[in-house]
């Protein structure tokens, strides 16, 4: 075909979906890497089934990735997909049912199903594609399998690279760059495998060049800074090494395990190790025993594992032993939605332990922060002799983002193990009465022999049952959080420091919230947002910051009752988790918009909330004005 029509775009959201096991994820990662190498913004997020081999050709078998590429840096996975590369019509249907496709979506689909032997499949295929056309979308039928079969015997092991070639043409990505990536992806395989994948990708590109008459163009601006691209679990794993951790003790659980996979592969070559324990309880116990002995250790888990680890968290708090616990949150309760995002472990992280067990709780809001937060967590845990919980989530865990390459520093590593003698009788909890802080004694230190116990104890570590000692030890453990609170800054406000509406979030919803704020502000709405990284202790100045807005709302991916639902009144309503905490903390009437959609928020959903709330505020403002005028008149 001759000259191509070029469609200039600022950004596009692409989804690549197939049956589980057909390689859509590998295709997506390969394509995303090519986009990363060519500059501009990038965010990817996985679409993962919970089973390994779900029944093929069903909506439940859909596996793949969403890739958002743009001229400018992006902070979230965006709204509706603009283009879907579907290996079959059921994978496409699952995305339609999820409500994540734009009305004018471009569907690229294998045409083999149009002439399938099974009349039901032919019928489905036709109906689904007719539906796409009816809603204003367009369909590009590609002989994905037929063309692949010209090069390989098993199309399952090749369709994905052909699809990459099609996308490479559509988005004008460099074939040379893709060559390099394919070589790296299959570096452990034979040269023949690499060559075959090249050939498949090139075939896809050539086929498209011949049959398609348009190309999209997104001009990515190459960053001056050195950039990296990785997912949040990899960032956590590398961040842990850069922070000086030496032991990761874990038990397999989705979606946390991939962080341990990364560590298992490389930790030993950095002087560390991963211990896969017999259960979640043992995993945290081993980490606690190791940190007690002076070696920085962490445990990585997800909601159900957090529940099992609570007793040990209490022991760590009670014995003032450092420990870092990473919770990559997923959908709950119980087994819930293992591969999907939710932010439902906040209250559990804050309060989950027998008795009053103060813990530090942090939440990274970007993949970049997943890296750096590990140093913060280790330092705080040691300085404050208290467990630190890092609340990540499935969105950060499996999403990939471009961010500036982290600088490594000796300052981020712990000091050498303290084995200096101490005077006999040195107290293991020599609390500073103002701050609650005390020096930690480590086994091997002559003179420091003492017992660390989960029973109530005095500053000498010995068991005490009396009132005043129990009150004192509680006060000292709690005082440490007050000490940290005073060292924190008020979180900065995104956009303006005052206005009508303030949205408050935590963790990975940040990007979507800020994008929605930008949109609404460009329409004249006085909305701002705040992301809280320190969830315990909360930073200072929140009440003051909230007071400069007419309404404050928490935005979270966890459950709350919705206004207007049957039986839901201001007395019966169960609020979202952060709003509960903020209401108690500030006595401000913090409302919430929270849902459990099993996927990240779309900016457009939050934008809609902003507009709705703004309309309410405007009419309330008008009625206040009317009342005032009425009062004057009277």
């Amino acid at each position, binding site marked *: 075909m001759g000259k191509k029509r070029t469609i200039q775009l600022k950004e596009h959201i692409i989804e690549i979906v197939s049956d589980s096991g057909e390689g859509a994820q590998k295709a997506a990662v390969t394509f995303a890497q090519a986009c*990363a*190498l060519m*500059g501009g913004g990038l965010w990817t997020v996985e679409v993962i089934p919970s089973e390994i081999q779900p029944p093929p050709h069903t909506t439940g078998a859909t596996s793949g990735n969403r890739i958002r590429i743009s001229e400018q840096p992006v902070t979230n996975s965006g709204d509706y997909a603009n283009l879907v590369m579907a290996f079959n019509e059921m994978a496409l249907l699952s995305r339609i049912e999820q409500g994540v496709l734009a009305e004018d979506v471009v569907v690229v689909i294998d045409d083999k199903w149009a002439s399938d032997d099974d009349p039901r499949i032919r019928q489905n295929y036709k109906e689904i594609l007719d539906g796409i056309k009816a809603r204003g979308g367009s369909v590009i039928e590609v002989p994905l399998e037929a063309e692949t079969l010209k090069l390989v015997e098993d199309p399952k092991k090749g369709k994905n690279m052909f699809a990459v070639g099609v996308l490479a043409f559509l988005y004008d990505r460099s074939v040379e760059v893709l060559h390099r990536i394919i070589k790296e992806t299959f570096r452990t395989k034979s040269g023949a495998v690499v060559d075959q994948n090249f050939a498949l990708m090139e075939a896809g590109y050539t086929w498209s060049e011949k049959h398609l008459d348009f190309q999209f163009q997104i001009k990515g601006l*190459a*960053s001056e800074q*050195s*950039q*990296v*691209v990785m997912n949040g679990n*990899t960032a956590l794993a*590398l961040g842990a*090494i*850069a922070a*000086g951790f*030496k*032991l990761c003790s874990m038990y397999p659980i989705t979606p946390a395990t991939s962080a341990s996979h990364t560590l298992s592969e490389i*930790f*030993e*070559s*950095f*002087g560390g*190790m991963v*211990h896969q*324990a*017999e259960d979640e*309880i*043992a*995993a*945290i*116990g*081993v980490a*606690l*025993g*190791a*940190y*007690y*002995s*002076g070696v920085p*250790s962490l445990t990585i888990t997800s909601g159900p594992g957090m529940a099992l680890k609570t*007793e*040990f968290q209490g*022991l760590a708090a009670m014995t003032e032993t450092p420990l870092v616990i990473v919770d990559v949150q997923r959908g709950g309760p119980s087994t819930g939605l293992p591969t999907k995002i939710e932010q439902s472990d906040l209250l559990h992280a804050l309060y989950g332990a027998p008795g009053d067990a103060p813990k530090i709780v942090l939440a990274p809001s970007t993949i970049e922060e997943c890296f750096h937060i590990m140093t913060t967590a280790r330092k705080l845990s040691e300085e404050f002799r208290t467990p630190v919980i890092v609340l990540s989530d499935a969105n950060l865990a499996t999403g990939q983002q*471009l961010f500036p*390459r982290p600088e*490594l520093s*000796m300052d981020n590593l712990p000091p050498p193990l303290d084995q200096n003698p101490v005077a006999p009788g040195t107290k293991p909890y020599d609390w500073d009465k103002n701050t609650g802080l005390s020096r930690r004694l480590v*086994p*091997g230190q*002559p*003179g*420091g*022999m*003492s*017992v*660390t*116990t*989960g*029973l109530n104890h005095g500053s000498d570590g*010995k*068991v005490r049952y009396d009132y005043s000692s129990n009150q004192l030890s509680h006060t000292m453990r709690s005082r440490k959080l007050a000490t940290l609170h005073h060292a924190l800054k008020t979180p900065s406000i995104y956009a303006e420091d005052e206005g009508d509406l303030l949205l408050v979030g935590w963790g990975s919803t940040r990007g979507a919230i800020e994008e929605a704020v930008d949109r609404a502000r460009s329409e004249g709405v006085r909305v701002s947002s705040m992301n809280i990284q320190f969830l315990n202790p909360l930073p200072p100045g929140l009440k003051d910051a909230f007071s400069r807005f007419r309404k404050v709302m928490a935005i979270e991916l966890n459950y709350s009752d919705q206004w207007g639902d049957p039986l839901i009144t201001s007395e019966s309503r169960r609020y979202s988790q952060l709003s509960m905490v903020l209401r108690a903390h500030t006595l401000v009437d913090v409302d919430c918009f929270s849902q459990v959609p099993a996927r990240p928020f779309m900016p457009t959903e939050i934008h809609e909330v902003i507009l709705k709330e703004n309309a309410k505020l405007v009419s309330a403002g008008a009625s206040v004005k009317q009342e005032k005028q009425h009062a004057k008149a009277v």
Partner: protein
Amino acid sequence: MSLLNIDEFVTEDCEVVPRTLEDYASDTPRWCKGCGDHGVLMAIQGLLRDDQVPPENVVAVSGIGCSSRLPHYLRTYGFHGIHGRALPLSLGVKLARPELNVITIMGDGDCFSIGAGHWVHTLRYNPDLLVVVLDNEVYALTKKQASPTSRMGEVTNTTPHGSYLRSMNPLTVILGVNNVSFLAQTTTWFPQHMEETLRRAWNHRGLSFVRILQRCPVYMPHMFSGPGQMVSMFLEHQDGVPFDHSLVRKANIMAHNPRDISAAHTVSLMEDVPPVGLIYWNPEVPTYEEVRHGRSTAMDNTEMLNRLNAHMDKYTVRLNP
């Protein structure tokens, strides 16, 4: 003038006074009068004194129960943890700091019931721990409830009409774990045998599991007190636990090779006349910390950061290859 090495310097010039039992003693134990725990504590203190182990290099880890108070009475480092979880804590200490001596103290409920998962798996890891279970066949601290080793028909507060099931035999469970490297049994009413057993266990490199049969003087005073009930079968072997033959009838001695796993299984089934001595021993099983540290590359911080920096290249976007 010749130079002294550090040991010579210490002995010749510092006139170090040998450590005595008092150097390993902390608070006065608060166990009941007549409880076997007192004897176990003394035996462990004696062991440390005999070997002149620097107390700062010892970590005593325990769970919850009467016996788990033991670390409070030792002047070493101690970690009195939570119910059933002494073994994960101990493994953490040993994995982090293989040079420390770790003694794990548990009761029968602690180890065989709430901590049973850790018990089986830690045997398999085989870290170099001295693990001592003080088995009095009852939950005592919580005031007399049935434990897994309580005998059938035993009347306790949770089994007021007699316990329902046959008691668990921990010995057969232990021998069923691949990688088990040391199993011994002794009783508190043969103090010398108990001391020798603990010494034999202390000298083994790997997880030395010692079950000590005891009688709770408050809740189970009748245990092992009827006619013939205190009789045990002494296992005899050159690699085993030595004992004073003058105190034991010939009929209560049997030859047993602790290196023979099949013989060990047979011995472990002798429930009516409990075997005492070394039941199983395999000094060749590698310890978990050896295996793991053998695979982990030790390096200084500069080297580590250089390597990590090089590894980050894998994730770095380069526009000009």
